[in-house]
């Protein structure tokens, strides 16, 4: 398995380089300009100067190579310096965002916590809801529970979050005033009160996203359970005289989770990518919001870096999913 992992990691390097090149070229070629936000009152000559100051005067291969160097060389050095107090980077230019003129990685580091708490939590909650529902609706297939589950998850799947989010805000923030409609990213949790406040501000975004996630995962869970409920070993387990509870929750569940766990692992990069619309609606301002605002502002270094990190996550989680599969399923061997 070690060599399998190593091999895949080695293979990932050219893949990722290629991906980064494609993304870079795509961003280069797509229309729009980092100065789109600059008001029309700014005369063209000044605009030209501003562009030059952003380094946009250089030909693209130069900028691409520079970015590669900054990403793979300067940034790691910088972070080593930061953590170990060394001075390897020697003030080399880091990747700078066009919008804010601040290092891209600093901004990303700022955004990760809220993305992880909100989007990550919603993923966890979604999974926690989805698995029991999946189990039950498979075990009682075609029962009313199953039918309603299917119905609700299809509705959940077909309703865009820009709609459900606003509905929640109108009901719970405007009319009932239970939860805040704006997420406060600066809130520090250090006592019970602030913890409650944090919980309150997470309720709505987490609910919206969790429902969406749960809708999908419960479908997977159900199908996987159905596959396994018909297996021979289930009969063996019953023939041992085990209770239904034990048969389903131990024998069937463990096997059914195998494909679902990989589905979950493959869905994880999306957590880091953020949930763009939900973040917008509740003003969570995580990575999703960062990406979309960077795209709108044509902040190429930011978009490039974010999507590339995202690509790394996709590749890594695909690998993790493969490895998890093997860990969970003793039958899988890596050659």
């Amino acid at each position, binding site marked *: 398995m070690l*060599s399998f992992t*190593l*091999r895949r990691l*080695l293979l990932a390097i050219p893949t990722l380089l290629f991906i980064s090149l494609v993304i870079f070229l795509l961003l280069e070629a797509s229309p729009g300009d980092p100065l789109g936000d600059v008001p029309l009152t700014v005369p063209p000559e000044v605009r030209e100067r501003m562009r030059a100051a952003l380094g946009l005067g250089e030909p693209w291969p130069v900028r691409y190579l520079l970015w590669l160097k900054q990403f793979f060389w300067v940034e790691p050095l910088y972070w080593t310096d930061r953590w170990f107090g060394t001075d390897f980077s020697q003030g080399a230019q880091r990747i700078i965002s066009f919008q804010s003129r601040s290092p891209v990685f600093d901004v990303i580091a700022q955004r990760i916590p809220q993305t992880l708490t909100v989007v990550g939590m919603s993923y966890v909650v979604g999974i926690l809801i989805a698995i029991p529902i999946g189990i039950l609706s498979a075990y009682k297939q075609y029962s009313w529970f199953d039918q309603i589950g299917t119905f609700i998850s299809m509705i959940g799947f077909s309703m865009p979050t820009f709609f459900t989010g606003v509905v929640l805000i109108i009901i719970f923030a405007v009319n009932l005033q239970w939860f805040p409609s704006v997420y406060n990213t600066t809130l520090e949790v250090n006592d019970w009160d602030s913890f409650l406040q944090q919980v309150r501000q997470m309720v709505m975004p987490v609910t919206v996203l969790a429902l969406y996630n749960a809708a999908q995962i419960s479908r997977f869970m159900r199908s996987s359970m159905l596959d396994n409920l018909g*297996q*021979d*070993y*289930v*009969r*063996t*387990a*019953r*023939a*041992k*005289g*085990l*209770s*239904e509870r*034990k048969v389903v929750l131990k*024998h069937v569940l*463990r*096997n059914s989770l*195998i494909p679902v766990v990989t589905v979950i692992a493959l869905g994880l990069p999306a957590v880091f990518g953020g949930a763009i619309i939900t973040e917008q609606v509740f003003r969570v301002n995580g990575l999703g919001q960062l990406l979309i605002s960077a795209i709108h502002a044509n902040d190429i270094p930011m978009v490039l870096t974010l999507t590339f990190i995202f690509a790394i996550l996709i590749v890594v989680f695909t690998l993790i999913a493969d490895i998890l599969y093997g860990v*969970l*399923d*003793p*039958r899988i061997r890596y*050659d």
Partner: protein
Amino acid sequence: MDDKPLVSIEELRVEFETNDGVVVGVRDVSFTINPGECVCVVGESGSGKSVSSLSLMRLVEFGGGTIAGGKLMFERNDGQVVDLATQSGAAMRDIRGNQIGMIFQEPMTALNPVFTVGDQLVEGLIAHRGLKKHEARARALEILRQVRIPEPERRLDQYPHELSGGMRQRVVIAIAMACEPRLLICDEPTTALDVTIQAEILALIDRLKREKQIAVLFITHDMAVVAQMADRVVVMYRGDKVEEGTAVEIFENPQQDYTKMLLAAVPRLGEMTGKPAPERLRLMTDGTHGAPEPIIVKDPKPLLTVRNLTTRFAVKGGILRRTVARVHAVEDVSFTINSGETLSLVGESGCGKSTCGRSLLRLVEPESGTVDLGGTDIIGLSQRDLRRARRDMQMIFQDPFASLDPHMKLYDQVAEPMENYGIGSKSERQDRIAALFDRVELPRSYMRRYPHEMSGGQRQRIAIARALALNPKLIVADEAVSALDVSVQAQVLNLLMELQQDLGISMLFISHDMAVVERVSHHVGVMYLGRIVEMGTRAQVFENPQHSYTRQLMLAVPVADPRQKKISEDLTFRPIPSPMHPVDYVARPSVYREVAPGHRVLVDPVTHS
């Protein structure tokens, strides 16, 4: 032994709710089992054997069945006689695994792949005996010893896939035996196993029955196994019991036609002694009387010559995925098949039979050797010529359920090879397909059906029709009848032999069943670890086996005669060693000793003794 039966099934009727209405799985079955007695239930596939046994455990309900009538009286440990059909769920859970144990047919799937053997063993003990975890583990170890698994300590922490089929079946038996039930239900426990392993498992069950005075309900369609195991026999047909009696009565004096037919369909080892050539089986349904003609080829000429065929599979590993080892699946194999004759390859699972057959058609690429079919060197052909050459060689596969595309109608399946080679116009093809259906004795109306609407035997006929569609000179039948139950197997065997007789087709018949091989072949090759260890005419190999492995195989075959019980405890066969070798391993060429003209025995390398 007291005469009070442990179990008595009275007028059992089981129904299934399906989309097309109610299907009756078991119509009216009654029989009893006494303590310490082995009752065998025989019958063809779908006759209701499994459903009856599952009803006893009340497991049919989980498959959508209901016990619609009858009583299932069972004497519990405490002496109380209860009707299992009306017990509550909790009471049944106490009986299942505790007082009745069950062994299933498919050892590959009967165990949960993600739990260790130990885990699965202790579960029942903890549930029924209330043992602590470590106590249960100790007991589990003890049971594994009882079922004579080598290195039982290690097995406890292994996963099912790490065990061989035979060992897995022993684990299943151990699970069933864990709480020392008084009734053991065995549903075709050996059908999927090799003869040698089958012999061992049968011996094990027999020993447990004798030692522990357990009642055994043994389900099978193999009459030879019945003869070896049964005290009494119940014959079932389409959900009904047709006959019941002691083993000797049933074998020597069957009353019902169905029973007679079943018996006739069983090839018995040694039956062919003294016969010059293969003969069809005499089936009750044939209507033909008198002895069938032997299939004698007047002037046999070599059709297929195979020399030094070697096929190896690379095992890749490491970061660069280089070949780290190789499976020597077929190693220096040479043989010849004459036109119109049958060569059989026999051997146990994993010995390379299938690979050998597939290498001939280059469905797997052989590493070296020559394959000469009627003057064409198959190995040297380009992909395009190879396609053309394959018209002369066709295969029939083992699993009739897997070898037909479930999404295609039978007509299309048979038409496909002709379409591939652009043979004939549409109407010509239609005629030919109709003729082929007649040839394999399927009604023409079946053309519009899908494979799943057919029985296994019928499917295998379609596979044969498909193979015949191209008028091949050679058919490679890879375990073509292994998955079929006796009566169907007999029909398909007869069909194959009849076709050979009529069309003069040569056949490479691959099987692990010695009795079948004896019946159908002109020549026999015994394979072991990728090599042919003994080769000769049928008479030479079966009547004068020279190689120790051949002898061992013969010994393991059960005899379809209740008076000749062969099962004994000292039957232990050595497991086949791994054919995997490091890359730099140099395989020695096979050296044979000629015992008699055409009868060769491998002397070097010595792989089995």
